[in-house]
């Protein structure tokens, strides 16, 4: 042994090094969560910086649902494996399961070809094939359990990690078998070394190379499209979509409307996104319907007469966006207070606390007299005129929506991994809601003025009677 005075710091260093390499971030939540309204993401970022706020606010109108994946370093792999199987389930075609099984079996040759002993990964592959069988069986018997089986399997740590291990080696084998496609992205070492260090280990996150490999090996041949939405601080007012797979038919023609796998990427983390049309209308989102419907029962009953009044106001519906207006009036006129707040200059004068770009980007409001209720002149969702309010007409501060909207909104977050938000904390403190920005943000689909205010199954047609279909028109881009 050398002298102790010299050794000790080294030992301490080694100890610290060990501590740091053993460190694992605390992770909570299900491995794969239930599908929920993506308005929860908007809520999560309500207090974030403006770029995130704008982007997350625009999210729910395009991507109605999302699903969390636990941020334990496996999330990207897990998200791809889950969505691939889920897309198969959505196809509801047993033949497709059989095709995919046969195709994956044939890929197994690839392992031996690139020097990966298939015997070593057979246990993991079997978990994948077992699950495929279970799902195929459920789909063929039409028992409606396939979704639950899939979710349960992915929330079992062993099954989930086995399938992840399988697709990691699938990605590795694919990269090694197609080095020319990936060499450009591999900056250090040869392809084999790269796979050994950056794809195969238990603790390694999904990177760009692996995304490309799985897209080519797993997703595209299955006839699925694959997009990743990047939510970061880059310029823009929406998440940036990158398309990784556009499936084609035998003749190389793009398939029309293929089933699409969508992931949401936030630096370091993947979740799953869906469009509303990925799921047929009768979704079981009862809690949301109930929660949102209740607050409106008393005050939001539209009256035909008020609709007529709206239509008579010159200019009220003269613009193109008039069509998209919910013609359902939300009755706030009972209170005269908003009228007293008429301010001819800045629409929507924000309180100091709420001076937020999300708000200012909404200044292209159709000015409306408060007594005529819904001044939801919501144009495109992306703040067409960030600084340019219509100059000629007076605009009112928005009447404060009922606090119960917030409560209703909170129910959207049931079980999600999100931190308690300020709304939760201040829930009791009713007055504070009156000045909160978030409730004024029409980017929030839970907000009564959002043109896409429709937590999936909310249907004005059934709720308020026929004649308000304009609400569902797709927003102009």
């Amino acid at each position, binding site marked *: *042994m*050398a002298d102790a005075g*010299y*050794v000790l710091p*080294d*030992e301490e*260093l*080694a100890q610290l090094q*060990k501590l740091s*390499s*053993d460190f694992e971030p605390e992770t909570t939540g299900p491995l794969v969560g239930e599908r929920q309204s993506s308005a929860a993401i908007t809520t999560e970022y309500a207090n974030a910086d403006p770029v995130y706020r704008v982007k997350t606010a625009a999210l729910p109108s395009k991507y109605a649902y999302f699903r969390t994946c636990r941020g334990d370093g496996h999330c990207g792999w897990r998200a791809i494996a889950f969505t691939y199987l889920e897309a198969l389930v959505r196809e509801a075609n047993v033949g497709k399961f059989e095709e995919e099984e046969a195709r994956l079996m044939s890929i197994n040759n690839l392992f031996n070809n690139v020097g990966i*002993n298939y015997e*070593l*990964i057979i*246990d*993991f592959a079997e978990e994948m094939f077992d699950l495929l069988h279970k799902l195929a069986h459920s789909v063929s018997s039409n028992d409606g359990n396939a979704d639950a089986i899939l979710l349960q399997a992915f929330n079992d*740590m*062993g*099954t989930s*990690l*086995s399938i992840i*291990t399988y697709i990691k*080696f699938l990605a590795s084998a694919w990269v090694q078998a197609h080095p020319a496609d990936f060499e450009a992205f591999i900056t250090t070492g040869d392809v084999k070394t790269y796979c050994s*260090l950056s794809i*195969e*280990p*238990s*603790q*390694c996150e999904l990177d760009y190379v692996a995304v490309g490999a799985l897209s080519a090996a797993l997703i595209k041949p299955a006839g699925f499209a694959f997009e990743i939405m990047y939510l970061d601080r880059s310029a823009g007012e929406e998440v940036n979509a990158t398309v990784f797979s556009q499936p084609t038919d035998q003749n190389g023609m793009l398939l029309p409307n293929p089933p699409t796998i969508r992931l949401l990427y936030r630096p370091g983390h993947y979740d799953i996104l869906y469009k509303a049309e990925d799921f047929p209308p009768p979704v079981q989102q009862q809690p949301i319907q109930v929660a949102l419907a209740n607050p409106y029962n008393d005050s939001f009953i539209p009256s035909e007469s008020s609709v007529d009044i709206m239509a008579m106001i010159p200019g009220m519906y003269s613009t193109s966006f008039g069509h998209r207006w919910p013609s359902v009036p939300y009755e706030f006129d009972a209170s005269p207070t908003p009228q007293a707040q008429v301010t001819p200059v800045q629409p929507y004068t924000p309180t100091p606390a709420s001076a937020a770009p999300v708000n200012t980007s909404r200044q292209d409001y159709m000015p409306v007299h408060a007594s005529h209720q819904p001044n939801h002149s919501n144009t495109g969702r992306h703040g067409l005129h960030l600084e340019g309010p219509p100059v000629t007409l007076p605009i009112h501060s928005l009447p404060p929506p009922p606090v119960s909207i917030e409560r209703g909104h909170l129910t959207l977050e049931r079980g999600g991994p999100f931190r308690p938000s300020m709304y939760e904390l201040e829930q009791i403190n009713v007055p504070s809601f009156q000045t909160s920005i978030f409730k004024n943000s029409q980017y929030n689909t839970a907000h009564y003025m959002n043109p896409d205010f429709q937590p999936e199954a909310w249907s004005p047609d059934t709720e308020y009677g026929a004649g308000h279909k304009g609400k569902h028109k797709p927003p102009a881009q």
Partner: protein
Amino acid sequence: MSAGAKKRIMKEYTECMNDPPTGMKINFNEQNMTKWEVLVDGPEQSIYAGGHFKLEINFPNEYPFKPPVVSFKTKIYHPNVSNDDKGSMCLGLLRADEWKPPNKVVAVLRLIQTLLIEPNQDDAIEPSIANEYKENRKEFEKNAKDWVKRYAK
């Protein structure tokens, strides 16, 4: 511990029985299958020849998705084994960020045999011993043999 992990450990033990790795003996207790006791002989061509080292292999609950934890129960003078009562090792495939689920315990044991023959001086847990191994090989060999006599006979 999950059923999958148990199945996997059992399978690996069966493989070890069918094809016993040379120079070592595995004590397996079915009541406590997550803790293996392995008696490793110092390889003939190494300075540890003649010594018998008791190792403990602990399988984490998440095995095989996390690496097994290896520790020397017999004191050994080696750059890659911590010089304390833990005798822990953490390098190469034993590291959490390098471990691959298809890796097997046999591979771990082979790695250890290799390290007894040739320590890895760049990935040392005991920098002072590594330094001695690098700078003063004679002194290192003397100390190592001394410890074999003292602890590993």
